[in-house]
């Protein structure tokens, strides 16, 4: 007799446990306004990344097309993946001294792991992390970027 | 047991082993032929009872390959680092401890795979990660022109 009662009680307990689970899913079924899906390409304009988001390395230029990069190569040394290449050139400045300045700051986005070490170690804060997150390209060469814009020069007052 | 007691006990029990206090934990270096018996002793001795092999790692030195055992006792909560050197780099052979701690079986597979130490009496020594075409990558003289780009 006792085993029969247990048998029936077990069935009811089992059904009850199933109903509790169904209650949870039903709660979400009937509250569709809580849905978490975002319609991505449509809501592109409303998407704001956090200001510290590490999307890609960029070199900010001011309105005079000037940047802060001295071409010291510390970022290149600190990059664990070799995704930064600094090509510098020698110029002769007004005082007649030979000076090495940056020619091309090459950034291989495809090799970057976004570890932030280059930005962190940059002595003149010339490179920062950008907010762009849509890094899909049709070919690999477009993932190699030159960060300093053509014709740009170094800002006044940046120490070597 | 405190570290001092542990060092004292071990140095009296195994006078020819090098016992010293390392940076964090007591360290003991045992000869490769006595290693297995020593490990057995570490586990079975009730005052030490090192029953938990935390980590087993191989290090390639110029003259020999070292296997480092990090041992902990779950009853006494003390920690010991045991080092065993192979005779030389060419015949890198050590006794297995997988009969003492089953977890060592797979750590030793890994060490065999990456450093090329052959563990005798190991039940199932095999390359764990890499296939047969590879050398032993964690050895310092390993060179791979295909996969490794050096700057």
């Amino acid at each position, binding site marked *: 007799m006792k085993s029969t009662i247990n048998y029936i009680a077990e069935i009811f*307990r*089992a059904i009850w*446990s*199933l109903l*509790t*689970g169904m*209650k*949870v*899913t039903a709660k*979400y079924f009937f509250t569709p306004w809580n849905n*978490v899906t975002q319609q991505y390409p449509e809501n592109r304009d409303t998407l704001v990344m*956090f200001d*510290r*988001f*590490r999307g890609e390395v960029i070199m900010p230029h001011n309105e005079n097309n000037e940047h802060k990069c001295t071409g010291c190569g510390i970022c290149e040394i*600190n990059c*664990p993946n070799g995704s930064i290449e600094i090509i510098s050139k020698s110029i002769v400045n007004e005082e007649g001294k030979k000076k090495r300045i940056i020619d091309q700051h090459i950034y291989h986005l495809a090799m970057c*792991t*976004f*570890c*932030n*070490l280059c930005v*962190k170690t940059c002595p003149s804060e010339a490179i920062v*992390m950008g907010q762009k997150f849509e890094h899909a390209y049709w070919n690999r060469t477009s993932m190699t970027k030159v960060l300093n814009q053509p014709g740009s020069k170094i800002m006044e007052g940046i120490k070597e | 047991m405190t570290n001092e007691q542990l060092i004292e006990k071990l140095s009296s029990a195994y006078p020819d082993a090098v016992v010293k206090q*390392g*940076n*964090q*934990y007591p*360290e003991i270096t045992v000869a490769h032929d006595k290693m297995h018996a020593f490990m057995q002793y570490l586990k079975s001795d009730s005052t030490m009872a090192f*029953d*938990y*092999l*935390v*980590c087993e*790692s*191989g*290090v*390639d030195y110029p003259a020999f390959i070292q296997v*480092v055992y*990090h041992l902990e006792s*779950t009853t006494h*909560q003390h920690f010991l*680092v045991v080092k065993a050197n192979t005779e030389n780099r060419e015949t890198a052979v050590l006794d297995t401890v997988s009969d003492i*701690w*089953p*977890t060592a*079986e*797979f*750590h030793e597979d*890994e060490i065999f795979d*990456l450093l090329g130490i052959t563990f005798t009496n190991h039940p199932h020594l095999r390359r*764990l*990660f*890499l296939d047969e075409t590879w050398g032993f*990558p*964690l050895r310092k003289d390993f060179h791979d022109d295909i996969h490794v780009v*050096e700057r």
Partner: protein
Amino acid sequence: MAEIKIITTDEIKTDEYLVNMGPQHPSTHGVLRLLVKLEGEIVHNVEPHVGYIHSGIEKMTEALSYPQIIHLTDRMDYLSAHMNNEAVCLCIENALQVEVPERVKYIRTIFDELQRLASHQLWWCASGMDLGALTAFFYGLRDREDILDIFEETCGARLTLNYSVPGGVMFDIHPNFQSKVKAFIKKFRKTLPEYDKLLTGNIIFQNRTKGVGVLSKEDAIAFGVTGPTGRASGFSCDVRKHHPYSAYPYIKFDEKLGTDGDSFMRWKLRMDEMWESLNIIEQLIDNIPEGDIAVKMKGVIKLPEGEFYQRVETGRGEFGVYIVSDGKKNPYRVKFRSPGFSNLFTINHIAKNWKIADLVAIMATFDLVIPDIDR
């Protein structure tokens, strides 16, 4: 009358056959290959074959400087990225005898626990999916998103955080950090009981996991099974408790210990750990002391000659970093003791004579992350 011969099941044994579960199998969560020997549905032998995602991190570290190593550890156990980062940082700080500011300790511990929560949430939803409850998968990911947003706001990355640096943390916490974490805790305290309602209490789930894949305490110790998996067997192995680091010495928390060591216990223990993590964060979040976020380190970090070992508790168990330094700017040898590696290889021991569906349940409750195993 003809004699009736009674045939036992042993005598009508059929042939065993091999099934490759993986490297691309839905339940192995990555590229793990299990060579399963089956008789009908009964598992007779499981042989894990790893190495499909072996990336040679230990070899790579030998060519990198110490700060550069840290970002590689993100990619091992990607669900416990911050704990891995912290382990390397602590090891370096220990070697250099650097005392990090109190603020750093608090921030790191909060991050640890948030990361643990995120890891357990993903484990919860993924193992729900393994057991066939697909809806759980989305609920878990939904809640994990909140934590990832908190991470992203403070350190700019969601998964591969690379937040700890030798001597401190990379950024100060975001001004919104505390309020967001508190809001998350409040919200998650409400949704966590739903996890129990949906699966833990469910009769089908309990039948699937109770008594399945029992790992005894002795075996757990012998196989070096740590983390929630080991603690479910009663193996007290919480590094946070036994060898406290960062801010863990300052706080009160329980090390949850199980007794049964079956799949259900492993499940229950992780659920309990989520509650405990919430408690830990609550103790810390309002008390973050003011101060620097990093000690000034040398431009080129060189460790003194010697060997250094640091253990931390990740979402999966005990993570160890063993650094052998020869005094140069690159380490001589780095070994990562990953929890998943030791945990995985017990699977043959405990999945024997269970059904193939139980093997999936056991793997689900082991919470394996394959890059953690392969490194």
